């Protein structure tokens, strides 16, 4: 069988296991939806000079956080678990190139992430009257921000999987930086321009802030720009930072990835 064939076979097994593991499904999907619903209902009001409500402003940011969760957290926990429960050890003994395993993970992440984005968009549209991107160029923006964001966060997730000592600690090890980063990136806060200066400065180093800003630029009209940190969507900078994290993430992966657990070196 070809590497691609084995990769899709892996994806089949990965998806089955994912859907059957209820904790993971609940954490991955329900948590962002619940947060979005709660926060969206708490914040009310319309930003002056634009038709955008606070809840609508929140949705693209929450989609970005959802993507970070299904890529970074999901992969970090998933790989740490595979290392802990013997999945990786078994695969190392089978006639398969390691790439097939990674293809399986990539396909899993692609499907789960697409489902997450759809679900959060649906909540946004149904509950908060979020307008979908209004023009092909905005869809294009959504597309490239999504692609770069998924790749960067996935690679970082693979790299971070090495930090977890066991499957049990992995969820904690991955969720803490994720939640902290979500706060620093202004995900749960509207408008982003009102964040304290130091928060913005730290948040701007990491990819989540730029992914959220990119998604806002796809969903929201330009009349909301006064609420942003800078009065521009900064597409060039967004692309630059996300690409830099893709490259950095790849380097981190190549230097830190371990097939084995720490105790059995």
């Amino acid at each position, binding site marked *: *069988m070809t590497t691609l*064939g*084995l990769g899709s*076979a892996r994806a*089949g*097994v990965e998806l*089955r*296991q994912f859907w*059957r*593991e209820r904790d993971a499904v609940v954490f991955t999907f329900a948590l962002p939806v619940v947060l979005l619903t709660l926060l969206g209902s708490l914040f009310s009001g319309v930003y002056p000079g634009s038709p955008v409500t606070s809840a609508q402003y929140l949705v693209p940011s929450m989609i970005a956080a959802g993507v970070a969760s299904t890529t970074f957290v999901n992969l970090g926990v998933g790989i740490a678990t*595979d290392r*802990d*429960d*013997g*999945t990786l*050890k*078994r695969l*190392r*003994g*089978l*006639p*398969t*190139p390691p790439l097939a395993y990674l293809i399986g993970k990539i396909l899993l992440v692609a499907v789960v992430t697409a489902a997450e984005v759809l679900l959060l968009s649906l909540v946004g549209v149904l509950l908060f009257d979020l307008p979908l991107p209004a023009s092909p160029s905005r869809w294009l923006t959504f597309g490239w921000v999504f692609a770069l964001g998924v790749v960067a966060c996935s690679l970082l997730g693979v790299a971070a999987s090495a930090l977890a000592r066991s499957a049990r600690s992995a969820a904690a090890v991955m969720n803490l930086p994720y939640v902290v980063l979500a706060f620093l990136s202004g995900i749960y806060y509207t408008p982003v321009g009102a964040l304290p200066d130091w928060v913005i400065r730290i948040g701007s180093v990491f990819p989540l802030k730029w992914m959220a800003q990119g998604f806002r630029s796809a969903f929201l009209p330009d009349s909301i720009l006064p609420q942003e940190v800078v009065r521009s969507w900064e597409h060039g900078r967004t692309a630059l930072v996300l690409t830099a994290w893709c490259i950095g993430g790849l380097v981190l992966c190549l230097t830190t990835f371990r097939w084995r657990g720490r105790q059995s070196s």
Partner: protein
Amino acid sequence: MTDDAVRVRGLRRSYRDTVAVDGLDLTIAHGEVRALLGPNGAGKTSTVEILEGHRPRDGGEVLVLGVDPARADVAWRREIGIVLQSTADGAELTVAEMIRHVARYFPRPRGLDETLTLVGLTDKRDSRIRKLSGGQRRRLDVALGIVGRPRLLFLDEPTTGFDPVARRRFWETVRGLDTTVLLTTHYLEEAEALADRVTVIADGRVVAEGTPDTLGRRDLATVVWRDGREQTADPAAVVARLSAAYGGQVPGLSITRPSLEDVYLDLIGGSR
């Protein structure tokens, strides 16, 4: 150049300041079931993992199915089956899904039904792996090791934690296989039940090797009577001679053969 399934010469492996494998030699013929015995820390697991291509070595010559496992490729892996020591993977899959998945990696795998029958899991076919008992999980691991029709099967302490009934069933399974097997175990009766030959290692070296009934001069019986003792391969002859000498009853006569366990403890005793 080699007709042996496994050929190891002078294998060495150290971890920081401890020497795990210290000049080990091992030759296993095709079709043989070989048991590797030794106390914890004797170097069993290191040796097996080096042979499986899972661990690098410091020195020595290793050929497994004619290939150096340190340079193992996908083609070589297709000929090897590995039954890992303790696993918990695929907990949410069913038995059938897991076996089918692993079968996909091999060019001519066994059928699902045949594999299930071989390990006696036919009635667990659609059970989630998480719900299997320890013994059933172990038999599934064996199923995953043999589904690709390997020419060489590694069984690493396969029946640890089994109850006696499950252990007997498992032995039946292994006896039914038509392949070279390298078995590591702590259970001497397991080695006796399954192995054609037994290799005892201690401190990273081979201290004895032989068939289960001749290992460590186990073929010699000890005849003890009131006035003496004698080690012999033919106790009947000794008793006949004594009987003639005493004119009938031999006072205090007993004939004992060491169990495999006696021999084993004796062999590794010297290294402790």
